[in-house]
C-alpha cells in the first residue's frame, strides 16, 4: 500500500485476509453501517496485535466491488506498521458489478494491469495480487472464466500472482492458466479447506499440476458458538492441512484465517480475527509436531516466494 518493498521485509504473512468485506450493494443497507470511529476502533487493535505477535504483512483479498478502500488501508498501514498488500480483481463473477460483468477479457486485463502497474484509482497505490474466484453454486460461470483469463494475462504481463476464492471446479481454471502460459506456481488455489467445498476440491490434483494450495479459512470452525455455513470441525481442517504439510508438500501450501477486521455487509464471525494464526493455528501446528523451520517456510518463505513480482 505504501509502495513496493523487498520480499525480505514481508516477514510473517497472512496471505488471505480482509480489512472489511461486503457484497456489492450492501453499502445501500444502513443495517451494516458503522461510523469511521467504530471502524478504526474495531480494526486498529487487531492489526496492532498482529504486529506485536510478529506479523509482518496482511494481504487484503477484498475485490474491487466489495468495499476495497485503499486510502483507508494506507492510513491503517502507516499507523500500525503492518504492511498491507491490496488486490485487484474480483472475489467471483457474482461480485463484479455490471460495468465489469459486461466487459471483455481484454478490458478486464487492461484494468487489472493498470491497477498493478499505474495504481488503483487516484491513490497511487498498486495492487500486489490478483483476486479471482468461483461464483456461488460451485461451477465456474462464463463471467468467472472471463475474469480468470483476464487475470492470467495480467499475471503474465506484470509478474504479480493470482489468489483464488475457492478451488472447486479447478479444471477449467487450470486449463485457462495453461492456455495463457501462466506457470501454476503463480496461483494460490484458495479455500481448499473450506467446510462446504473441501470434499469436492481436487487438492492433490492441483498440486500435481504445479499449483499452490491455500488453507486459508482457518478458524471458521463448527466449534464456534454461532458458526457460519462454511465452518468445519477444527480437527478435520488440521488433519487435512497436515496431510500436505507432512506429506512432502510443505513448500506448496499457505495458510491464513480469512477474517474480517470490521465486516462491511454481513455480521462477521464474532471473535474470529487474523490473530487466530498466532493464538491457535501455530500452537496447534507445534502440538502436532510441525517444526519451526516448516512453520517459517509456510508463513514466511512460501509467502515471499509467491508474492514476489516475477518478471
Amino acid at each position, binding site marked *: 500500500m505504501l509502495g513496493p518493498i523487498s520480499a525480505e521485509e514481508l516477514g510473517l504473512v497472512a496471505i488471505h485476509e480482509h480489512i472489511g468485506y461486503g*457484497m*456489492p*450493494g450492501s*453499502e*445501500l443497507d444502513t443495517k451494516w453501517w458503522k461510523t469511521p470511529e467504530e471502524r478504526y476502533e474495531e480494526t486498529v487493535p487487531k492489526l496492532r496485535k498482529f504486529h506485536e505477535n510478529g506479523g509482518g504483512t496482511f494481504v487484503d483479498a477484498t475485490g*474491487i*466491488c466489495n468495499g476495497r478502500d485503499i486510502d483507508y488501508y494506507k492510513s491503517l498501514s502507516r499507523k500500525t506498521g503492518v504492511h498491507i498488500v491490496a488486490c485487484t480483481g474480483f472475489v467471483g463473477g457474482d461480485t463484479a*458489478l455490471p460495468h465489469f460483468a459486461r466487459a471483455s477479457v481484454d478490458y478486464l486485463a487492461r484494468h487489472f494491469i493498470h491497477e498493478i502497474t499505474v495504481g488503483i484509482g487516484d491513490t497511487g497505490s498498486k495492487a500486489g495480487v490478483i483476486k479471482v474466484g468461483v461464483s456461488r453454486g460451485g461451477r465456474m460461470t462464463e463471467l468467472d472464466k472471463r475474469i480468470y483469463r483476464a487475470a492470467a494475462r495480467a499475471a503474465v504481463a506484470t509478474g504479480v500472482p493470482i489468489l483464488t476464492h475457492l478451488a472447486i471446479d479447478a479444471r477449467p481454471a487450470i486449463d485457462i492458466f495453461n492456455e495463457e502460459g501462466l506457470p501454476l506456481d503463480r496461483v494460490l488455489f484458495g479455500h481448499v479447506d473450506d467446510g462446504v467445498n473441501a470434499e469436492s476440491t481436487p487438492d492433490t490434483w492441483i498440486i500435481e499440476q504445479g499449483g499452490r494450495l491455500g488453507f486459508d479459512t482457518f478458524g471458521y470452525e463448527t466449534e464456534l458458538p454461532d458458526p457460519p455455513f462454511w465452518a468445519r470441525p477444527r480437527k478435520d481442517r488440521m488433519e487435512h492441512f497436515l496431510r500436505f504439510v507432512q506429506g512432502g508438500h510443505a513448500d506448496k501450501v499457505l495458510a491464513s484465517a480469512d477474517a474480517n477486521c470490521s465486516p462491511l*455487509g454481513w455480521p462477521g464471525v464474532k471473535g474470529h480475527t487474523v490473530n487466530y494464526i498466532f493464538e491457535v493455528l501455530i500452537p496447534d501446528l507445534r502440538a502436532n509436531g510441525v517444526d519451526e523451520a516448516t512453520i517459517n517456510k509456510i508463513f514466511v518463505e512460501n509467502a515471499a516466494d509467491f508474492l514476489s513480482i516475477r518478471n
Partner: protein
Amino acid sequence: MTDTTTSTPTVNTVLGPVPADELGVVAVHEALLSVVPGAEHAYDISMDRAEIFEVLAGKLRDFRAHGGGTIVDSTGMFHGRDVNLYEALSRSTGVHIVASTGMGPEEMLGGYFLTPQTNPPTPWPAEKFADLFTKEVTEGMVVPRVERRGAAGLVASTATSEGMTATDESLFRGAARTALNTGVPVSIRYGKDALGDLGVVLDEQLPAHRIVVGGLDRRDAAAAGAPLEVAQRGAFVALDHVGLDDDDAYLTDRERAALVLDLVKAGHGSRILLSSNAIGVAKGQPDYDLPFSYVVSKFVPFAKLQGLSDEDARRILVDNPRDLLTLR
C-alpha cells in the same frame, strides 16, 4: 417527511417537500448523473465532481431558461445517484430536483441482493426491497455508508428487456408496497410486456393513478396498442423518448405527436406524460446528450402545430406530472 400541519399537497424534492403547485413544467423520466454500477471503479473513467457539476448545472439552467421547473432523476438508488450533488445543483440553478429510490433490472443489482452470504444464496424477496425503498422515503436517501439525506420522491424500477425475471418481480412488488407505505408514486419501465408488468404492480393493490409506465413510445408497445390500454387502466402513459428520432425500436417524434393526439382524442389527456430519458452526465455508457429542455422547447411546439391545444399541452407538462408526484 410530509408536512402534517397543513393540507397543502407536497412533493419530495432533494431540498425538502415543495408545494405541488410550485413544480411548474416537469420532466419525469430523466437522468442527471447516470453511472453504470461499477464504472466508478474503472481505470479509464474519471469522476471529476467539479466537471460533473458544471455540465449538469449548464443543462439545468438551459431547462429553466426554456420554462422548465422540475427534473425527476428516475434512475433509482444504484445508478450514480448523488444526493449531495443534486442538492447543490438545485440550490444553484433554482430547478426543483426530485430524486428516486428503487433499482432494476436484475442485471443492474449488486450481488448483495442476488447471491447473499446465506446458504443457499436466495435472492431478496419483495418485502425486503419494500423495506429498503420505504426507508429511503421515510428516513431519507442514502449516501452509501455515510448518511441519509432528503426523502425520495419516486420509486423506480425496470424489468429485464427479454422479460421480467423473478427478482424483477420482487423489485416491482417492493416498489408498489413502498408507494402504499409512503405515498410516493411508482415508475416502471417494462421489459417485454407493458400490461403484464403493470399488472404486477396493480396486483399489490396500488391504485393505477399512482403508477407511470415508461417506454410506451417503444414501437412494439405502440403497435400492440399498449399506450391506450395502459391509459384505460388509469395509469400514466410516459412517452419518454422524445427527441429519439433515429432508433428503429422507437417511434419518431412525428409518430409520437400523433400518438399524443390519439390519446387526447380518446379522452386520456390527463394520463399522458412526456419526457426524454436524456442523460445529463453518462459514465460507463454512451452519452445521450439531448437537452432536458427538448420536450418543452421543440417537441411540444411541434405537437401544437399538429393540433395539440394549449390547454392539453399545459396539462401534459404541468398538471399530470404534478398529480403523479404529489404525495398521497
